[in-house]
């Protein structure tokens, strides 16, 4: 089934943009970053699709090999843009990262559900707990890494590439695992939730680790 992703984007984005005029502070930042996350998802789909076509890859291969690299790079660039331009506090940076990831996941899931249908509740739940959480977890991990690098005065090219490559390989591994039915698919579906749980503890422990 053909969907028109730009139309879906407009439909979801318009009320969000309007809501920006009536909100302030963190709520406004969250909504704006959420909106940006959706936009990044739309652009990443175009770029990924284009690169897949240039490399002569099928849709499944594009999602395994190209999408993780393009999607994570674009999400990361958005966060890096915020960080370099506005130098936000650690807490704000984390919130922005989570919000971009959530916006990205929401838009991707909306388009996916429109394509495949939303009849099966178990599948919808699995989708929400896997892809949905995966984008949030990868962005949270990137935010934590950026905070650590900034605090340790090690915000170097190596640090940036290191963090980005970890997010990419995590995403690529997930896409590869769920590409075939069987035990690998089940492991793949569990991976984002496990990563999110680990990151939750790391995020709580981070201030004590970075003391001194």
């Amino acid at each position, binding site marked *: 089934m053909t969907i028109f992703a730009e139309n879906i984007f407009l439909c979801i984005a318009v009320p969000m943009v309007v809501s920006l005029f009536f909100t302030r502070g963190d709520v406004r930042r969250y909504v704006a970053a959420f909106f940006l996350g959706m936009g990044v998802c739309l652009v990443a789909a175009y770029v990924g699709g284009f690169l897949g076509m240039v490399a002569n890859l099928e849709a499944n291969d594009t999602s395994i090999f190209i999408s993780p690299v393009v999607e994570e790079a674009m999400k990361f660039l958005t966060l890096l843009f915020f960080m370099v331009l506005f130098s936000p506090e650690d807490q704000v940076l984390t919130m922005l990262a989570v919000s971009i990831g959530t916006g990205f996941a929401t838009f991707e899931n909306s388009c996916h559900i429109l394509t495949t249908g939303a009849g099966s509740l178990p599948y919808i739940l699995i989708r929400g707990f896997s892809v949905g959480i995966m984008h949030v977890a990868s962005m949270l991990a990137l935010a934590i*890494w950026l905070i650590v690098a900034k605090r*340790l005065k*090690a915000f170097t090219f190596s640090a940036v590439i*290191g963090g980005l490559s970890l997010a990419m*390989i995590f995403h690529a*591994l997930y896409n*590869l695992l769920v590409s075939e039915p069987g035990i690998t698919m089940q492991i793949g579906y569990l991976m984002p939730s496990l990563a999110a749980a680990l990151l939750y503890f790391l995020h709580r422990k981070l201030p004590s680790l970075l003391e001194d």
Partner: protein
Amino acid sequence: MFSGHPERIINLVMACAFFFVLLQAIKLLHSKKHFLTIVFFVFAISCGLLSTLYWGVYEFLRPETRMPFAANELCEWALFLLYASSLRAVFPKSASFEKKIIPVALFAAANVVLWIAWSGEWVQDILTGLSMGWFLCVITSCLCLTCALSTAEWVGAGTVSFLLILGQSLTFFTPEPVSGALDKGCSTLLLVAMLWLILKTVWTLKKEKQVQKGLSLSYAAFAWGAVFMYMSGGTAYMIASMLTVSCYFLMLWAIKEEVAEG
């Protein structure tokens, strides 16, 4: 699951080794000494672990199928850069220029030419070469700073590197029995140099108790292992992989000693 697929066993061993080293390195974070070095090391090992898992899963799901685009290659580039950063955190003066860096950079460039000739993947090979070249330059600088190698050993290392590049280049222009013999000769040379580096690292850390020297040697052993792996196929590749795995433990050992020394 593993029968007839030795590469799967190697992947599993590598993943287990990465996981163990990662856990041990995370424990070291609590000591708060050399925090930056350990943070970079933990990230590098995480890159290695996820990259190995990616390869393992790919081999399992799509055996004997060539990857159209290896998403884990970026992890390998990051791994070299992060290892270089972790070493530079111990030796901040490693940014200073040493004359020995010139032949090392040429060696890295020659490796890139060989990889391109073997695989035809221009972009990936050049980017891998750049990150690995930087890593080799940082190691060279650290080896000079710590006086880890004597003049004779530097000359020996240069000769081996030159012979390797010459031998591998000649395999393109010689017929089958000769090129096979040249390839085996190069693998033997790589293996001997690798074993020598590992033994020298162990000797330096255990007998001489010179931690910083041992640290730079352990990173050099790992870098040589990477050169060995990228230059080999079949059985030689498997031996190189196993020896490189042992280097992770050597690096961890050296970092532990450095942390203990404060």
